[in-house]
């Protein structure tokens, strides 16, 4: 599992990089800054919708790994106790609040992408 996650993290970062480069290069070679409708048209093609959806799924997976590492390192009794002596009992509450926040962000992101972008409602 360790190796799988390690490789997944690196492969996903390459996908994220390729998407960001595509957007950046498009910005420089197309006149988006003069006519937003060109941008709107380009981003709403089926190919771009598939690529953007794949990018977002990969990015969420990539981010979740990093966020899990932050949780494992910093939202523990040991670390909270070190930064806030005597308050280590807060670790569990903070951990759940942190997870709740992440789930909320994913729900909002999914809602925006699915309804506003993919379905164009």
């Amino acid at each position, binding site marked *: *599992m*360790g*190796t799988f*996650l*390690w*490789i997944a993290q690196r492969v996903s970062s390459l996908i994220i990089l390729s998407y960001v480069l595509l957007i950046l290069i498009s910005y420089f070679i197309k006149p988006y800054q003069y006519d937003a409708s060109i941008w709107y048209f380009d981003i709403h093609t089926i190919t771009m919708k598939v690529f953007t959806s794949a990018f977002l799924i990969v990015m969420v997976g990539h981010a979740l790994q990093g966020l899990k590492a932050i949780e*494992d*390192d*910093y939202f*523990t009794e*040991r*670390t909270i106790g070190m930064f806030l002596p005597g308050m280590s009992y807060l670790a569990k509450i903070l951990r759940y609040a942190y997870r709740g926040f992440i789930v909320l962000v994913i729900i909002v992101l999914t809602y925006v992408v699915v309804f506003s972008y993919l379905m164009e409602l």
Partner: protein
Amino acid sequence: MAKKLQLSLYRFDPEKDERPYMSDYEVDYPATGNMMVIDAIRLAQEKDSTVTFRRSCAQGVCGSDGVNMNGKNGLACITPVSDVITRGKLEVRPLPGLPVIKDLIVDMKPFYEQYEKVKPFLDNEDEVTTGHERLQSPNDRDKLDGLYECVLCACCSTSCPSFWWNPEKFVGPAALLQAYRFIADTRDNQKKQRLKKLNDAFSVYRCHGIMNCTSVCPKGLNPSKAINEIKKELRKIG
């Protein structure tokens, strides 16, 4: 004429003190020559006999006097004061990330538990076919150089943030160096099992390659390189 060294020592006796504190001592520092940090601590101990620290060989072999000197881990017996002193001041603290027993002495149990996990011994149940020993080519033997010399002082593991945060799950640079020492040893035939045991999200992969371990190793070893070699081997077995 001796110069004066402002030595500040971490003090904590869990039986008496509520919180740790720093004690300042002024010790003579030879202007003509140099002295090791351990000598400075001993001079402070002559002034205050309650100062507690651990040492044995005092020659960088036993690895028992690992401390944090002005923010950098190392062995007090082979670190010259001149290497770590800043503006005439030297602050000595116990190794970070391990429970303090008293003053500069830490409990090495979490460190040894990780060391035990990697089975730091040759594991080969096959019968020896030639003579009394398992033979190895000089080339294969050369691969172990830089891996077996570790004195288990814990300077590397305790300078690693991943080990500070997860000492039960992350094996740590010292134990991983030993793990690779046996993975790379052609006389050991448990390579696959050793690697499988390390293939989780924490044991090896918690190392993010910041190389603190390599920069503090008092024996000049490179645990970071060994960890990368383990990662390469893990990718080979998938």
